[in-house]
Structures are given as structure tokens and as C-alpha cells.
């Protein structure tokens, strides 16, 4: 005996939700369904007064049979096997989950679907798909009806929309009425949806698929989604038109580059012409050809008139390329290749399958990938020809019944491979070459501009190249590998500058790490202060509400202010160190720096009952203030941690700073627990990264082990050293001698 499986209704719903999680995704899914249903009009309508959403299309509609056998079977898609419609349009989806987009939008869904033979009403409450119910136990209401589209939408308040439905929806189509919407439909949301659809649907399908987004008061004109607008993001656009005699007009539009405020600096002689400047600003490049200039030896246009629009659109570019070629930002460009990609053919606005169909072998029917693999040159290659990749091109070529030499195959599965069809393909390749030539022209110049403005990279390349040659060549040819000293010097200078930048960055990162260490060390205290501050404020608020005495409330607020002061003192020791003025190397009066810095610690130290004795020489030392502060912060933090471990009554830190010749000598000691046994024999081990003996209450190691490593690294920057040898003899307490070399004033 076999036992059948079943599925929890909610699981089916979740699968749908997985695929359609966002509102704009759900809307696009339904619009695609309308496109797949062969509609030439698709209308979205949100009615504020009733909080209802309508989705209307004049596609082929569904019969009761289709609804029973296809629509009601989750995961079933007729598009898997039968992806061509009567019109020849190729359907875009194939997963059979598009209907769950309705669930994403609203809880209640009613549908009127009309074919040439019958009309059906169908409705479902998605909340019926709850956990615990088997999918086979969930039903949708279904009935055959006589109602027509106009009557079904009679309650709609927008008259323009009613007129449009009357004009466009006759014989077939589908209307969804969605209630209990899951989102709050604001004007902004509707505008966002309009914008999103305008950027997602390529302009080339505008003639065959018109999309409207209505709201309650919107007029017809403003509701139409103008997909031909500039919203569609591309890099190059090329329009071409061939008349009966073969005269060809090509318009190329560059929209790939963004020079920002460098426009006048880059787009100028000797790099670009004044005409180029106009082209970059949006003027199309116009080219006119007679037929045999395009197809050699073919004098007469036997294909007939045709036209089209093609787009070149990259999907990514590297930071390096963006800098070199001034590519505009395309980070927000969405990948819609699976739906709208490919170069498609339309005959009298109806799709001729299967050309340009995504994810099929006929997607690249112009064999652009072959061209690319034969000539893989980079865009800036001085001699090689750059070619577009197949997935970077999309667009539409429009032919008509008048193109008799491009006849449909008898099985309606494409165009007969006549010699005219071969010419036709050759022609399109020529058009694509126009984009390639122009783009390569621009990019070669931009590469030249980059090389001119970045000579060091060229020199570096030369050095690397000659070094490589030197290894492979014999000694007799060594002369050829000599480097001009000036060039080498320029490269070295640049590299040194880069090293200095990296050193500065490193220094800043060390200081930030110290900030992190200090913050991490005192995070318990900081959290405690924040908590107490919150409690004080809440107590004051409640006291106020309970009508307690003014004096009581005032006392609570004063205590809150004290806590705030304490809180600020933590911030001072943790954050202040990285202030901009502390990141400049200059002559710093050491006494003042130490006094001010210890003062900022004072509040924190007195909280911990730690006394600091400071004895600092009056001298001006050239340094980054935050380096010195970083050293002291790390040492103090270690001392405070050490005091926590030992029950010491008089917690003391002594800081003694003297100057000897060109050296600054810091003697730092505390009377804390001292180094742990692990480090007593070899104290220098604590200068290694990740060395720590700090443990939490559960004896877990919790120190970062970076503090003394940072101290040592910073000291090394001043050609100094860290002497920990005296700790070997000490039973308790910590002592370190630090020398910093430098310039004094």
C-alpha cells in the first residue's frame, strides 16, 4: 500500500513568499504575468477611499479548465512547456509561483478572468492557508459568470480609468481585486512603484505593452508609465532606421561617462574634439550610410525597410576602471536580463520567437559571444578590437509583413534562413560595431588621459617590464633594460609618499585600537553608569507623575547630572584621543600634555581610588600627541586592571618624565599585582601581540593582549625602546622605562 504525501497549506504559502518577498517584486511578478498573457495593456490601480488595489490586463485570460488544471496547481507553470502565445510573444516566468505575489499584496483576492469563450469568477482568502491545514483542504471560490469587465469595475471611482477599461478590455483579460492590503499605500509608495517599473521595463517593449499606474484622482496622461523616458539605465543606445532603398540612419547616444567637475579638463583638445563635448552632453552621433557601405557588394536592399533600438548596458565595473574611464555610477542598476535581456525581433509589434529569448540557445542569435572570444581585447587596447559581450546587449528590431524576404517558418518557430536573413544579421552586427567603435575610441583617449596624468604608473610598468626582460635576456642585451634615473626617482618618491600615508594610517589605526582597548576595558563601568543614569531619570519621571516633593525630584535630577559627568569622563578618556588636532605632528609641551591628559583621567581614577603622582619635565617634544596619549592610556588601563586583582589600599601610579640629550625618558610604575608569573622571567613577552593574563570572573581570558604591543610599536616609531627588565626582580607592582628619541625645542 502506498500512502500519499500532503503539504501543510502554510508551507506552500511560505514557498511563494520566499520567491516574492517585497512589494515591488510582487508587482513586477504580476506585470510579467500580464505580459506573458499577451496583454498589450496592463493597469495597476490603488483606490484610497476603499483601500483596494486592482490589477487589470487585457491578455488572453483563463478558462475554467485552465484555472482548474493550471492556476490551482501550485508550482505548475504552463510556461515550462508552452512558452509561446498566439501572438508569438514569449512568456517570461516558469516557476508557477507568480500567483503568490497576490498573497504578498493582500489577504483577500477576487479575480474575473475572461476568455473568448467564457468568464469565470475566482476568489481566495490567503489566511485560509494557515498552519495545520492541509493544502488539499484549502479551497478557492469559483463560478462561471456573465459579468463583463465594465460591470465588474463599475464601483471604481476614477472615471479616466473606467474609460480606459472600456476602450482596452473587451474580449479577454483578467481583473484582480485585492482587499485587506498588507502595506500602507502612500503617495510616495505609488510613486516609487511607478519609478521602479519605469526603470525595469526596457523602452523597446513600450510599443507592444503599455503600463498604467492609476491612483484615485490621477488622470490618464499622468498614469501612463513612460518607459521611453530617461529612467532606463544604459551606457550606449543606438537607433537605426533603414528605408526601402537601403539608406540607413544611425543615431548613437553615449550615456556611459560621468566626468563630474572634470568635464572641461578631460573633454578638451588634444584628447577630445568640440563635437565630442556635445556628444557627451547628450547629443546623438548621427551617421548615414547607403546600403553597400554596410553590406559590401549588396547594392539593393532586398530585406525591405526595418528599424530598431539597441542598448549596451554593463552590469558592473571595477573601482579602478571607474577611475580610469570615468564610468558613471551603475551600482543601482538592476539585472533584468532574465526577463528583458537579449536582442528581440518584432514583426508588426508582435514578437518573433525565439530570437533573444533569455536562458535559451537562441539568446545569442547574432553570435556575439563568438566574436568576443575571437577578439577578447580590453577596451583600452591600442590595436585590438574590443567586442561587446552577448549579455551586455538588449533591444528590439522591428520588421513587418512587408519584409517578404524574411518570412516566418511554417512551424512559426522563427524566420526562414534566407540570404536576406543572413544580410539582416550582418547588418545588425554592423550596427553593434558602431557602438564598439565609438566606445573604444572614447576609452582609448581616456586611457591616454589617465596615463598622461598618472605617469608614475607608466614608469612602474616600464621598470617591471624591464626587470622581467632582464631576467629572461642574456647579458649582452642588458643595455635595453636600463632605467632612466629620473623616472626611477619619481617612482621611489611616489612609493615613499604612499608608505608615509600608510604609516600615518597605521598610526591612526593604532590609536583607534587603543580607544577600543580602553573602551573594552571599561565597558562594564560605562554600562553601569549608563544604567544608573537611566534609572535616575526614570525615577525622577515617576516621582513627578506620583506627585512627590519637588525637592525629591530635584535631588534625583542632580544625581543624574553627577552620573552624566561621570559618563562624560569615560568618553573623555576613550574618545578624545582621536580628535583631529591630536593627529598632527608638532612640537608639544610635554608638561601640559601630561597634566591635561591625566586630568581627563582623574574622574575615572578617583572612582577607582587610584592616585597618580606626576613629575614631568618642561620641554617641547616633536610628536603626534595621540601617540603619547596612546602609550599612557594603555599603561594606565593595565594598572587599573592589575589593581582589580589585588586588594591594595593605596593604589598608586607614578609617572616620571625627563629629558636627556635627544631622548625623552618615561618611568612608569604602579603598586598593583605586577606581572603574572607567566611573564616574570621574560617580561618582553608582553610586548608580543595577543599576550594577556586578564581574566573574567569565570577565569576566561578576556584581555585583548594588544595594549603593550601598541605601546611598543608606537615607541619604535620614535626609534625608542621599552625596558621591562626591572619587573624580573619585583614581587608586586609594575615598572617600565620608555625612551623616545626625537627633536626638542
Amino acid at each position, binding site marked *: 500500500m502506498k500512502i500519499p504525501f500532503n503539504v501543510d497549506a502554510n508551507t506552500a504559502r511560505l514557498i511563494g513568499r520566499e520567491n516574492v518577498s517585497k512589494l515591488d517584486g510582487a508587482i513586477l511578478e504580476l506585470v510579467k504575468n500580464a505580459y506573458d498573457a499577451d496583454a498589450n495593456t496592463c493597469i495597476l490601480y490603488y483606490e484610497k477611499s476603499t483601500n483596494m488595489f486592482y490589477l487589470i490586463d487585457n491578455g488572453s485570460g483563463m478558462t475554467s479548465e485552465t484555472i482548474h488544471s493550471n492556476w490551482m496547481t501550485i508550482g505548475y507553470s504552463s510556461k515550462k512547456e508552452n512558452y509561446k502565445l498566439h501572438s508569438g510573444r514569449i512568456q517570461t516566468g516558469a516557476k508557477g509561483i507568480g500567483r503568490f505575489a497576490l498573497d504578498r499584496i493582500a489577504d483577500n483576492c477576487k479575480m474575473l478572468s475572461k476568455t473568448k469563450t467564457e468568464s469565470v469568477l475566482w476568489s481566495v482568502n490567503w489566511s485560509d492557508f494557515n498552519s495545520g491545514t492541509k493544502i488539499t483542504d484549502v479551497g478557492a471560490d469559483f463560478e462561471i459568470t456573465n459579468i463583463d469587465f465594465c460591470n465588474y469595475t463599475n464601483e471604481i471611482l476614477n472615471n479616466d480609468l473606467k474609460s480606459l477599461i472600456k476602450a482596452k478590455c473587451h474580449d479577454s483579460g483578467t481583473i484582480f481585486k485585492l482587499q485587506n492590503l498588507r502595506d500602507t499605500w502612500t503617495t510616495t509608495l505609488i510613486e516609487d512603484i511607478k519609478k521602479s517599473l519605469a526603470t525595469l521595463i526596457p523602452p523597446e517593449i513600450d510599443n507592444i505593452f503599455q503600463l498604467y499606474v492609476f491612483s484615485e484622482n490621477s488622470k490618464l496622461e499622468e498614469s501612463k508609465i513612460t518607459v521611453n523616458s530617461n529612467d532606463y539605465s544604459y551606457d550606449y543606445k543606438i537607433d537605426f532606421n533603414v528605408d526601402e532603398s537601403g539608406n540607413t540612419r544611425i543615431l548613437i547616444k553615449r550615456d556611459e561617462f560621468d566626468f563630474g567637475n572634470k568635464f572641461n579638463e578631460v573633454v578638451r583638445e588634444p584628447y577630445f574634439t568640440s563635437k565630442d563635448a556635445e556628444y557627451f552632453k547628450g547629443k546623438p552621433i548621427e551617421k548615414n550610410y547607403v546600403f553597400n557601405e554596410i553590406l559590401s557588394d549588396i547594392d539593393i536592399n532586398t530585406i525591405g525597410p526595418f528599424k530598431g533600438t539597441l542598448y549596451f548596458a554593463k552590469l558592473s565595473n571595477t573601482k579602478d576602471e571607474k577611475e580610469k574611464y570615468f564610468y558613471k555610477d551603475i551600482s543601482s542598476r538592476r539585472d533584468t536580463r532574465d526577463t528583458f535581456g537579449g536582442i528581440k525581433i518584432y514583426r508588426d509589434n508582435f514578437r518573433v520567437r525565439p530570437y533573444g529569448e533569455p536562458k535559451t540557445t537562441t539568446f545569442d542569435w547574432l553570435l556575439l559571444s563568438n566574436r568576443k572570444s575571437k577578439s577578447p581585447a580590453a577596451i583600452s587596447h591600442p590595436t585590438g578590437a574590443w567586442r561587446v559581450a552577448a549579455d551586455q546587449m538588449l533591444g528590439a528590431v522591428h520588421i513587418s509583413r512587408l519584409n517578404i524576404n524574411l518570412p516566418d517558418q511554417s512551424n512559426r518557430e522563427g524566420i526562414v534562413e534566407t540570404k536576406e536573413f543572413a544580410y539582416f544579421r550582418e547588418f545588425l552586427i554592423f550596427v553593434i560595431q558602431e557602438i564598439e567603435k565609438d566606445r573604444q575610441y572614447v576609452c582609448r583617449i581616456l586611457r591616454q588621459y589617465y596615463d598622461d596624468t598618472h605617469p608614475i604608473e607608466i614608469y612602474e610598468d616600464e621598470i617591471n617590464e624591464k626587470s622581467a626582460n632582464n631576467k629572461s635576456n642574456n647579458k649582452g642585451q642588458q643595455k635595453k633594460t636600463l632605467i632612466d634615473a629620473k623616472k626611477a626617482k619619481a617612482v621611489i618618491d611616489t612609493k615613499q609618499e604612499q608608505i608615509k600615508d600608510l604609516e600615518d594610517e597605521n598610526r591612526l589605526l593604532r590609536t583607534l585600537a587603543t580607544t577600543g582597548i580602553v573602551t573594552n576595558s571599561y565597558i562594564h563601568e560605562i554600562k553601569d553608569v549608563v544604567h*544608573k543614569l537611566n534609572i535616575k531619570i526614570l525615577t525622577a519621571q515617576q516621582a513627578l507623575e506620583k506627585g512627590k516633593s519637588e525637592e525629591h525630584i530635584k535631588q534625583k535630577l542632580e544625581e543624574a547630572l553627577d552620573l552624566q559627568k561621570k559618563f562624560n569622563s569615560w568618553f573623555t578618556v576613550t574618545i578624545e584621543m582621536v580628535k583631529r588636532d591630536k593627529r598632527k605632528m608638532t612640537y608639544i609641551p610635554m608638561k601640559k600634555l601630561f597634566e591635561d591628559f591625566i586630568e581627563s583621567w582623574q574622574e575615572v581614577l578617583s572612582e577607582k581610588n587610584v592616585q597618580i603622582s606626576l613629575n614631568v619635565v618642561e620641554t617641547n617634544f616633536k610628536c603626534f600627541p595621540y601617540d603619547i596619549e596612546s602609550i599612557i592610556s594603555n599603561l594606565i588601563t593595565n594598572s587599573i586592571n592589575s589593581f582589580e586583582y589585588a586588594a591594595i589600599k593605596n593604589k598608586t601610579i607614578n609617572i616620571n618624565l625627563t629629558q636627556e640629550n635627544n631622548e625623552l625618558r618615561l618611568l612608569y610604575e604602579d603598586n598593583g599585582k605586577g606581572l603574572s608569573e607567566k611573564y616574570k622571567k621574560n617580561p618582553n613577552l608582553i610586548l608580543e601581540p595577543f599576550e594577556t593574563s586578564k581574566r573574567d570572573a569565570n577565569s576566561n581570558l578576556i584581555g585583548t593582549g594588544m595594549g603593550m604591543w601598541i605601546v611598543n610599536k608606537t615607541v619604535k616609531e620614535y626609534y625608542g625602546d621599552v625596558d621591562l627588565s626591572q619587573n624580573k626582580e619585583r614581587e608586586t607592582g609594575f615598572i617600565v622605562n620608555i625612551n623616545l628619541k626625537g627633536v626638542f625645542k
Partner: protein
Amino acid sequence: MCEYNIGYIDDDSSAFKDYAELLENYVTLKLVENCSTKQDVYNWILENKIECFIADFKLSDQYTFNGTELLEFLNKKLPDLVCIILTNYPCDSISENLVSSILIKDRSILSSVEGLTTFGEELKQATKVFNKRLVNIENDFNILLVKKREKTITTNEEESLLNLYSVLKAYNRMDDLPSEIFKSEISDKIDKILELATQCVSLEKKKND
């Protein structure tokens, strides 16, 4: 003052007054004072008729034990008393595995009106649980008392009887009972043996005389 008595121990008592004020509509919060050992804290709990107990995790500034260790001790002595850890660092307390994480609360719960309401109600409910369980303790005590009177009580049960009595007495559930009741069966037997031994010794003495 609310009728629900909550004990609170913290080595830093600076927030105590605020906690007590914030929770005053729900419970009466009492601060543990003058205790140095865990047993001291237990005694303090009984003396103050505490019905629910809150401890900070880190008590090291004043005590030789931390909050979770104290709660472990209290749970053994007074299993029916709900004991809660209130800390800024719940993770540290949880990682010790001495107190169930359900009973470890982040102090931030007291930083909002909503949290305060929830926590106050939870404390109230905990005291109700304790008081209801005191009835059960009373029943257990009576069973053991009967055994005691019937002289069928074991040594462990006798010890338990004394513990239960001290708890019930502390929470005014029991009047003073005659001290005879609590005289151990064992000590009775030892007394009898000693009496016999004394008699034997005196008899022997007489013989020798």
C-alpha cells in the same frame, strides 16, 4: 509599603534606593546589610521574612562570593524561594551554569516603564509562589511531626523537621513549640545509655565498697 518583601544584595548599593522607589508600587525592596557569609545572608532572609530574593552577579567589592554562588547556596537551604540574578552582564552569569538563565535578568529591564511593569509583576508573582509553597512546607512539617511523636522518624527526617520549623517560624506560620518536641530521638537514646552506664558504675562502686 507593599506587602511583598523582596531581598536585594549588591556590593554597590548606590542604585538600591532608586530600584526600591521604582518598584514601590509592586513590592518592598530590602537591602542586605551587615552580612559577611552566605549563612548570614540566609539568616537575614528569614529575619526579614523575604519572599523573593535578588542578587547582583558581581559582589566582589564586599563579599567573598558572587551572586550565582550565593543563589546556589540559598536554593539548597530554601528551595522554594525564587532567587533572581540582576546584572548588567547576563552572559557572565549564564556561562557559570549555576543559575538557570530564566532567572538571570538584565538590569536594563528597569530602565523602561514597560520593563519595570513586567519585572514588578514577576516579582509579585514570585512572592505568591513562595507563600503558596509555605503551605506545602507546613504540611510536610506536620507529617514529620507526627512521625516524631510516633517515634518513627529517621535522623535525616529529624534534621529536615528542624529546618522546616525554622522557616515556618520565621514566616509566622508556626507558634513556638515545646522544646521537648525538638529533642532528638538520638539524644534521648544517648541519655538513656548514659543513665544506664551511670547506674552500672554506681552499682560496681557499691560492690567494691
